[in-house]
């Protein structure tokens, strides 16, 4: 008992609040993001349709990138070089839905199809490969872990090949490549002999490491030094991780973002690893009166999330940030239209080719 008390004290001390987050003034989060060269792409449900929008890092000037009233674009992922966006596109309704994979330039042009009946694309660190998870069954199911195997698509050749351990990869979701190219972080639910876990999967081999951090939806920082994830419906955490090690381990939580009232999900790192974007909104099970949406937990891709918006926080300071008590300057609402805004992904402005 004494030992567990001591342990609790140590944990509490480790995650105790750091200095107060900056107020809304010069140098504040808003000002920092306003000055940022980055942009953010995200999914939003407008005019009975899922579309991808692009906005500045402070949430200003949102622009519809897709404009496809007959297709539903979701789950945007940005290539590390900032040049391209891959995403899923749904056609049809209910069990007849066909979920396909596409990529396009980050300005929305040159859309190209990768494959059908696949989901959860993720970029290789060289921006030349898209990984994805084939659907478990031909029949559509909105549940995110309805996947079997893993495949890599080569943009240059248009050819796909399975991950070397693809046959043993089952019920993964939300995969993310490590910047060093050695690992893929993903969640597994009821598969691979695991109840539920966040795994590191060797990118070009068979090794699988259970990171033993409760929760889901890992996101590795572009500097390769941190992992962010959702330990529960109402928390986002970030902690150090040594991805160059042969047995990477996650350190103690450095940042904890809490919201006891609303769900917070879908964390993504800014390209400089200094900021985090998050989806935030109330619990619900979708709204089937809206075309192209499904019935399940509203954080799942394709489920309408009533009143959900995006916000950003700084990842530079250690400590706990409670979104319900935080000062206005400590976090920034990036969207306010409550149009089921989810799955944000930051964009580094692509480098221009030398003339």
């Amino acid at each position: 008992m004494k030992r567990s008390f001591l342990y609790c004290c140590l944990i509490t001390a480790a995650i105790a609040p750091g200095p107060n987050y900056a107020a809304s003034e010069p140098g504040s989060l808003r000002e920092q993001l306003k000055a940022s060269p980055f942009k953010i792409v995200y999914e939003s449900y407008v005019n009975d349709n899922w579309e991808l929008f692009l906005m500045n890092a402070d949430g200003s000037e949102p622009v519809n990138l897709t404009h496809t009233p007959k297709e539903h674009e979701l789950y945007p992922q940005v290539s590390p070089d900032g040049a391209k966006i891959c995403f899923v596109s749904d056609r049809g309704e209910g069990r007849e839905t066909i979920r396909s994979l596409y990529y396009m330039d980050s300005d929305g042009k040159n859309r190209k199809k990768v494959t059908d009946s696949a989901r959860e694309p993720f970029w290789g660190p060289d921006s030349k490969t898209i990984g994805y998870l084939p659907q478990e069954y031909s029949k559509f199911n909105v549940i995110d872990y309805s996947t079997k195997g893993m495949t890599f698509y080569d943009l240059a050749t248009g050819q796909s090949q399975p991950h070397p351990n693809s046959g043993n990869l089952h019920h993964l979701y939300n995969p993310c490549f490590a910047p060093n190219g050695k690992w893929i972080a993903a969640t597994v639910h009821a598969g691979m002999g695991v109840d539920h876990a966040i795994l590191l999967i060797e990118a070009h081999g068979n090794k699988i490491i259970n990171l033993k951090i409760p929760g889901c939806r890992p996101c590795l920082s572009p500097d390769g030094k941190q992992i962010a994830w959702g330990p529960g419906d109402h928390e986002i955490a970030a902690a150090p991780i040594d991805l160059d090690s042969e047995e990477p381990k996650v350190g103690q939580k450095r940042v904890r973002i809490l919201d006891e009232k609303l769900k917070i999900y879908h964390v993504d790192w800014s390209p400089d690893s200094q900021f985090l974007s998050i989806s935030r909104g109330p619990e619900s099970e979708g709204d089937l009166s809206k075309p192209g949406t499904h019935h399940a937990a509203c954080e799942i891709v394709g489920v309408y999330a009533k009143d959900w918006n995006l916000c950003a926080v700084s990842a530079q300071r250690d400590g706990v940030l409670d979104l319900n008590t935080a000062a206005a300057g400590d976090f920034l609402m990036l969207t306010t239209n409550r149009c089921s805004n989810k799955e944000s992904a930051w964009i580094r402005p692509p480098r221009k080719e030398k003339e």
Partner: protein
Amino acid sequence: MARMTFRLAVSVALALFSSCSRTGSDAPAETQPDTTRGSFSAAITEPAEIVTKSGVEMVFIPDGEFVMGSDKGNPDEAPAHKVKLGSFLIDQYEVTHEMFAKAQLPNPSHWQDHPKKPVERVRWRDAKLYCNERSLLEGLQPCYDEKTQGLVCNFEAGGYRLPTEAEWEYACRAGASGEYDFGPANKLREHSWFEENAQERTHPVGQKKPNRWGLHDMYGNVSEWCEDVYSPAYYKNSPSQDPRGPAAVGKDTKSTLRGGSWKSSANMCRATFRQGQRTGDADACFYTDFCGFRCVRRMAAEGLPKLRSQLKP
């Protein structure tokens, strides 16, 4: 089990014979397979095991009346009251991993080490989706409207659905009036996987003795979703004919689970024990690893002639 099957087969055969007799000169000859079909509906008065078109073993439960609930159990089990039910088919076993896979649904179960283990961690919604998938596999009209938020049930449709609480309890009691159909609680180990013998896990279905109507694992292994929304006070004013549970009330609606599970005490395995459980429909990961289910299908008189060809050999 073999004795049970034999007894049922004999009773059905006897019933068929007697009904043939009643039809007199209009009755076709016994040597022709189709001859008794017209009179089968009148004849089948005992529970009978069948195999469905997609290969699922079910038990036909004839219409009847029983006393539902208990005045000696928990407050939500009272008052004991008479209920009349139409005939129906009910799965002989809990829905297993291999059945879920056949319906092309992602298996959410915690224990995935045996294809004949019951699925668990199943949301209420997913159980209903399974029912619809199985209906479609057999060319039946699905009961659940997937375009409605709570998957509203059409009880008149011919497909599969979750049992109502009344159907579940009627099938579990199997004509008995006590806490268990087999008699005293000290025999529960022979009929059920529960906390005293399950070793904190599920087990392949059908390993324990069935109840008197041939249904396995009604008392344990996994608790089973019913169609009814849970209301502790429902028995005070439920209808006496085919009760279907109260209307859903708001966001925190609970649904009813019946039967014990691998983690239940003997008390929770009683035929009248009721549990309200959040549906899990708003949870991305539903960790309630004792929630499973089995399906039923209404079987009105006009459907009975087809049953003969599906009788379990």
